[in-house]
């Protein structure tokens, strides 16, 4: 159950992922990721979800909890998330039996974890759009379903009315063949929000900006001492049925990963290096023709 006062409790679920940036990532000779040589960082989508939770902190003074499932090393993801959202609590759901979990088994652990926050009184849960190493985008929705929360996907902006306990969110969707349609929806708390990669928090008064600075400063000092905020919870502490988590709880397994076959190029490319006027004139003519074709007369 959600809270009935004007307080707001939010939770973020994050994931520790390989750093795929150039100069940091390593591949084996067969093209698979060399995990030993590649550093792990807070996943980029988890970072965006953390930013969205920070918005709730700055704008509504929300209490923020961050949770992740993983081995002890995953606490570094919690620390990085805390730096972004000034979390009041960090929860690491860690148990050997969680290993080998698919998205459904992971969702079971996350559900149990979120239910432990503020006595289960979490109003909004944030997750990233998907993980950069799994790419399924299923864990969020499945956790929402298990929690029984209203699921709002691809959210690019949200506002909460603390009086009426309603959230208004903008979602970036495709509709009837059109991309980038913005849909505005309203839902009663509690909700589960999966944040779109294009989300960007915006604060439009001086006092909000000052609060932003204040909490950011607090976040820096908290993240330095993140262990003070960290709780590690195992199966027993989470009160989970071992049959529902880890390998036994996973109806799916990754059998084989194949490269996506390259699509046949439908466009023709021609190199025009611009060393003489004729070539440049040709580019202009070509562009003109293309643009003219796009004008609806």
């Amino acid at each position, binding site marked *: 159950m959600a809270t009935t006062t004007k307080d707001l409790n939010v939770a973020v679920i994050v994931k520790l992922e390989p750093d795929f940036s*150039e*100069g*940091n*990532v*390593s*591949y084996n*000779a067969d*093209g698979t990721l060399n995990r030993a040589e590649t550093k792990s960082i807070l996943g980029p989508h988890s970072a965006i979800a953390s930013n969205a939770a920070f918005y709730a902190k700055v704008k509504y003074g929300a209490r923020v909890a961050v949770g992740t499932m993983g081995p002890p090393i995953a606490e570094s993801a919690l620390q990085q998330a805390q730096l972004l959202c000034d979390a009041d609590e960090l929860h690491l759901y860690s148990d050997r039996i969680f290993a080998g979990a698919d998205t459904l088994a992971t969702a079971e652990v996350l559900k149990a974890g979120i239910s432990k926050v503020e006595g289960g009184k979490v109003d909004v849960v944030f997750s990233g759009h998907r993980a950069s190493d799994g790419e399924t985008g299923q864990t969020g929705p499945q956790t929402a379903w298990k929690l029984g929360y209203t699921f709002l996907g691809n959210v690019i902006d949200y506002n909460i009315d603390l009086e009426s306990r309603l959230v208004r969110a903008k979602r970036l969707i495709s509709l009837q063949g059109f991309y980038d349609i913005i849909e505005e929806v309203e839902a009663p708390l509690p909700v589960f929000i999966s944040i779109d990669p294009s989300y960007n928090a915006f604060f*439009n*008064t*001086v*006092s909000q*900006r*000052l609060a932003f*600075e*204040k909490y950011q*400063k607090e976040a820096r000092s908290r993240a330095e001492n993140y262990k003070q905020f960290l709780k590690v919870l195992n199966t027993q502490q989470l009160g989970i049925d071992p049959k529902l988590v880890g390998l036994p709880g996973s109806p799916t397994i990754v059998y084989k990963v194949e490269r996506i076959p390259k699509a046949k190029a439908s466009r023709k490319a021609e190199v025009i290096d611009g060393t003489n006027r004729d070539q440049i004139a040709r580019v202009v003519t070509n562009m003109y023709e293309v643009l003219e074709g796009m004008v609806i007369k």
Partner: protein
Amino acid sequence: MERYDVAIIGGGSAGLAALKQLSNLNKQAILIEAGKKAGSKNLSGGILYSKKPKHGKTYNVEDVYPEFLQDTPVERRITQYMLHATSRDKVFTMNLTAAHEYQANFGYSVLLNKLNGWFAKQASESAGRQGGGIVSGVHVRSLSWQEEKTVIETDELEPFEAKAVIAADGVNSEVAEMTGARAKFTPEQLYQGVKVIVKLPEGIIEERFGIGPDEGAAHLFAGDITLNHIGGGFLYTNLDTLSVGAVYHYDSLMERPSEPYTLVDALLKNPLVAEFIKDQVAVKEEIDKNMPKEEQLRTRFAVSKLIKTWNELRDSYHSRALRKKLIESGKYKSEDEIKARLDSVQNELATKYDTKFVTDYVELEYGAKLVPDGKRCAMKKPYYKNILFVGDAAGRGVFIGPRIEGLNVGIDDAVRAANAVARAIDRNNFSTQYMGESYSQSIEESLYTRDMKEIDKDYLKIFLDAARDVPKDIIGQRYGMVFRLMSSGTLRGLAVGFANILGYDKLLPLVESQDTYVQVPIEVAEKIGRQFQATYEPTIPTIAQRIARLKYDDDRVSHIKVLNPKSEFMKKMVTLCPTFCYSMEGGNVTLQHEACIECGTCAKETEWRHPRGEKGIIYQYG
């Protein structure tokens, strides 16, 4: 509408000092900065001084920030100050350390991104305790007045109100322009400075410049490196980089426009400078295009990673602190072990990936800025209604021979402005008679204001002493008389007294001429200079490569509007814009703003605004 006591516009060194000082006086203030964070749009030469004037008081950086130098990211305390006269491969050097130390507690080389970041941290902590703070990524669009209070509108936030405003928005102050408090600066009042940051490991800097861990060197250049313009070059040692730049009288550039970067390039190509900046550089071998695509990609990643490791390890190996840190972390047992690992990475790159290691130099960042010459453009009354102008915004830069100071001037101004505002808050009187005048009177007492008005004969003597070894016949008929006059103490006093009666207006054309900046140094170098030879030829990046390396948050909308695309001034911008934003098309000057680094060179004849909040250039060094 939200209400605040004081709004400071601009988060450079001056604006931040104003915020810190007001907080020190227990006053609430907010600071509005257009950049993503304080320091991201600031550029300086730069040396930050602390002064001890013979007469009067100066507010120094350590007066505002009591914690200054405890953990402040300053670069190096400058302990050597040399002036070089150049002509081709000949250089004559004068030691001007005495001039650098004149009336100074210290002078540190600084990089503003880091330093202003630190100032901002201190200032915002203090301001937070008074209910104020720093609001960054916000660009002020307009100011208006309602019942004597200023309503500030921005591109990003809801309007808010302030009782007093401190304008610290730099040489291209929009506050000054919007209010009409002063006219836009003209080329004769400005210098254009262009700077590159050169990478060089800490230990190599110390060895090459003959300095200890807490010491630094400043080298100044005049002569043929100026390409006949009035101005000169500089090279300052930072902790593990060098600041190499050229500062030229804008008027002189207008007369015979040269691309700004060619002036830095002339300096980099000078054999003495080339030897100062040289380093070992890894050059990637082209990847064999016949290999399978995946193998190419894998190789590219592997080489990138190894070169990154090599660079990091090499920087650590040459840095006392980083070396110690690596050993303490337990990763390496000794210096020798770090060296062995470094050699093995280098060996792997060379043998496995054909990476070449050559002698060259590495540029990290290119930047440009206009510098106001306070002698010619300092505002006589630096206020308007309830707004006080400080630092560059008030045109208060000190330019005396090789001495260029702006940071410490801005800090001194800012403290005086903050004091005046605090007093006004106590009396609830923000009128020009009470607040503006009290600030104006205060800065009249500043050492820097005096420097903008008159010649200091003791400072002049240091130059004459340093030039002792120069045969008098070189200075020749032109300055022989002056020299003779100046070498006697009594006569010098009289001569300077006379000169000060004449005033800077009449003196400047004589003192700041092509002759003094170019001809005399060339002659000196030719006749008595030492010969230098560079051991390599530096590969100087093209302007396109330099721009490509800069970081921008690109705004689709241009913040500059060309007013008259056919004017003579705008035609010169095609050459004078440091990042080539202007080009000629069918007799019209057209603008592509994307590469703009917001120096303001084109501001005089354009509608010139800073980009919206967070947009535009983001300097990593500054």
